[in-house]
């Protein structure tokens, strides 16, 4: 049992497929949600999986340096800034329109 499990240690492909599944889930959320806050959550999911991919590549492709981990830190910082601005926009939008339904945010389309 131990030998079987040790022989099936997760490869780079398994890790990357996990990241891809998380990203695809976020993509589904972005495309299917109607509430802007729900879309923001799905975008955070996608950003998180992207940061995970940086670290995966760091471990399996360039283990000598920590460049991938540094990039993941930058991705997390950008995600934090994005969440702050998105929340401010949603609050201002809700004050003006009393909704965060993205289907009704089409006044720039006319």
């Amino acid at each position: 049992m131990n030998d079987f499990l040790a022989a099936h240690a997760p490869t780079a492909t398994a890790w990357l497929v996990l990241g891809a599944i998380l990203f695809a889930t976020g993509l589904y959320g972005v495309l299917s949600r109607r509430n802007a806050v729900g879309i923001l959550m799905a975008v955070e999911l996608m950003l998180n999986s992207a940061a995970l991919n940086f670290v995966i590549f760091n471990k399996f492709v360039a283990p000598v340096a920590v460049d991938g981990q540094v990039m993941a830190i930058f991705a997390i910082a950008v995600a934090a800034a994005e969440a702050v601005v998105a929340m401010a926009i949603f609050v201002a939008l809700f004050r003006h329109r009393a909704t965060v339904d993205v289907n009704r945010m089409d006044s720039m389309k006319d």
Partner: protein
Amino acid sequence: MTVTPEAAYTVIFYLIAAVAVVLAVAVVTARRLLRAAIFLMGVLFMSAGLYVLLDAPFLAGIQVLVYVGGIVVLIVFAVMLTHSEALQMDNPPVRRKVLASLAAAAFLLMTGGVFSTTEFYALRDGVPPADSTRAIGMSLLDAGPAGYVLPFEVVSLLLLAAVIGGIVVARKVPPPAQPFTSGGDMPGEADFQRPRSQRDGARQARSLADKPPVAPDRSPVPPAQPVSQRDVQSGGGAR
């Protein structure tokens, strides 16, 4: 039977991966957004565990501090501040669900195909850094060609801009029509806070003061006196 570390690693990876995927699906399908936010917190915790498995303990700590402690709390606040009954049950129509799953499946197929046909190997030989936290710190503040001190500073500027932008966008009282006014704190700005009638009156008085005042008997006043008066009134400022 004792469990070797390698076997435990495999078991923990697949366990965390399964929980993360299930929670991620719950994030995008939960009908109540507050529950979705809690599921998102679970996904981010699982990601922190994955970082530990990837020999990145510092990143795991950052993940818990920033994502779980900051971003999820922000999202919960956003959910509560934009609470609307119409979107309480966010149930997308079937057509959009099908299209979205098609797009996600296509992405997954494409990337999965690329990953399964690519061979990944370490591009450079050498020993991995013993202490990844130390290596990250050195690399973030290294001004050499392999360092990241410039992006580090740019990110600090980005965060500052995001903080200020968030306050400006979300604040309760809209700023006056003049851009970049702080609502009367700066000299000369208080005029915009006054009612329009007083403002017009003040402007009229100012435009009158620019011309030489006319006496009631319509004889022009000697020009030297009003100039000196204006200088006294405006604090003798250079013109």
